[in-house]
């Protein structure tokens, strides 16, 4: 039933698209937030291209986090890799507890300014939810299913690919979604080290004391996070509509 929720989402998507394509048409909305005739709409770069590179950085980092976190989760749930579980947990936790800003600061001397340090910070920050969810997903696979799979002659690899991972998939995707959404916001700090992204808009607003810029950067980032969350949820629902696995 296309209820209020759907209408709200479509409206949000429409507004975001309209704003990114024709920002100037929103000038009257943001004008009240400016002073002394400052520009109401961010004018130091193309908003659409900033939003796209912001999204690109976040997705790239999430892809890397997913690859590493899921592989690690698989490794430590195999009999042979169980001894690495405490170590992996500590590392992944460190990635989450160590402030992304600090990672940025540490990464810049190593890899220089630009997108790279941001990717590293987001990658480290996004590992935890994916890793933990992969772990829970794999560890809670019902023993009877594992026994049935092995008993019918699946190799360890076949069992992983056709039973364990598919069953853990809803949880893994939930972890990816969480990590994505957190990082859409976190990625704004990348602009402090000259990565192209929406943080630029916010920082410009801070520097020139232009509340309209800050609002624009914040709103676009927020809307992107919400829409991304919804899109991921929709994909998950579609994938697991028929089989009830949880």
């Amino acid at each position: 039933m296309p209820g209020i929720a759907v209408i709200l989402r479509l409206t949000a998507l429409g507004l975001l698209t309209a704003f990114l394509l024709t920002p100037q048409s929103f000038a009257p909305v943001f004008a009240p937030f400016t002073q002394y005739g400052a520009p109401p709409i961010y004018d130091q770069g193309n908003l659409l291209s900033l939003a796209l590179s912001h999204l690109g950085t976040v997705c790239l980092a999430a892809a890397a986090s997913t690859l590493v976190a899921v592989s690690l989760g698989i490794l430590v749930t195999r009999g042979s890799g169980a001894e690495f579980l405490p170590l992996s947990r500590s590392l992944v936790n460190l990635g989450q507890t160590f402030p992304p800003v600090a990672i940025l600061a540490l990464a810049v001397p190593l890899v220089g300014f630009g997108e790279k340090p941001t990717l590293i910070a987001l990658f480290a920050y996004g590992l935890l939810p994916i890793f933990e969810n992969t772990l829970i997903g794999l560890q809670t696979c019902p023993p009877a299913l594992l026994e049935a799979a092995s008993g019918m002659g699946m190799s360890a690899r076949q069992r992983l690919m056709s039973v364990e991972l598919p069953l853990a998939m809803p949880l893994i995707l939930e972890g990816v979604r969480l990590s994505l959404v957190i990082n859409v916001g976190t990625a704004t700090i990348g602009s402090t080290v000259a990565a192209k992204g929406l943080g630029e808009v916010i920082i410009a607003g801070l520097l020139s004391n232009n509340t309209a810029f800050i609002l624009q950067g914040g709103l676009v980032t927020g809307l992107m996070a919400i829409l991304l969350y919804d899109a991921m949820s929709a994909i998950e629902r579609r994938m697991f509509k028929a089989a009830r696995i949880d």
Partner: protein
Amino acid sequence: MIRIENITKRYGDSAVVDGVSMNIERNSITVIVGTSGSGKSTLLRMINRLVEPSQGRVLIDEKDTASEPAHLLRRRIGYAIQGHGLFPHRSIAQNIATVPRLLEWPEARIDARVTELLEIFQLDPGVFAHKFPHQLSGGQQQRVGVARALAAEPAVLLMDEPFGALDPVIRAKAQDDLLDIQRRFGTTIVLVTHDIDEAFRLGDQVAVMSHGKVLQCDRPAALLTQPADPLVTLMTGSADRALRLLSLTSAGEAAIPGATAGISVAASASLRDVLSDLVWRGADAANVLDTEGRPRGHLTVAAILSHGRSR
């Protein structure tokens, strides 16, 4: 068909299965019965090497099962467990097709086999093939579990308390179905249960286990008339052993020549049921008829009782 030679499984210091030897005939049902924790499942799992023996070996058709990779061995052996272990993310058809897929059967052969099995297990393919396990009742799920175990036409089927989760009525039906299937495919079945009635009902041969040892492995009647251990008597129940013995013989087998005036019973009925019928109706003799209604002789109460005597 299956020869278990002096097999032992130890976990730490304790032998969970302790020096068990057993012969299992082709085309028969062997039931392993015993209390919980007696080592039944471990013994069963050593046949398909889900558990590797600490000592001893298992031969199938004179070939040591340790001579090939375990997962390849298991594809040739059906395996059905309690709570069925159906994959919740796969449709019924996909579940049943699991082993044929692993064996890389051609798609058309897989489809045909799935349809055939669904029909045998009284699950309309048009209705059930594309359903998911959670949409089925417990009894239906259990049937799919057995169908899946039989999908690749294994010569041997191992079952670990396959009917444990079913209520009594569905359970009895499932047991009858299993007997039909066994006759139809000639599968050699090894079944684990803690239910002695199930053991007597299904087993051509029953192995009674306790503390990792097989106390006796024999025809059901022999367990009653020549128990090898007091525990066997205890487990088979001494109070109703005469009736149990009667339930192991069919009217057809026991019928004596000639006819009698009075009621008729089916040749397939057990003597226990015939006796019950006679008591109920106040008769003391019955004609035995085969499935086509032809006379196969008759039975008297005295003749029936002689079958329930310890020899």
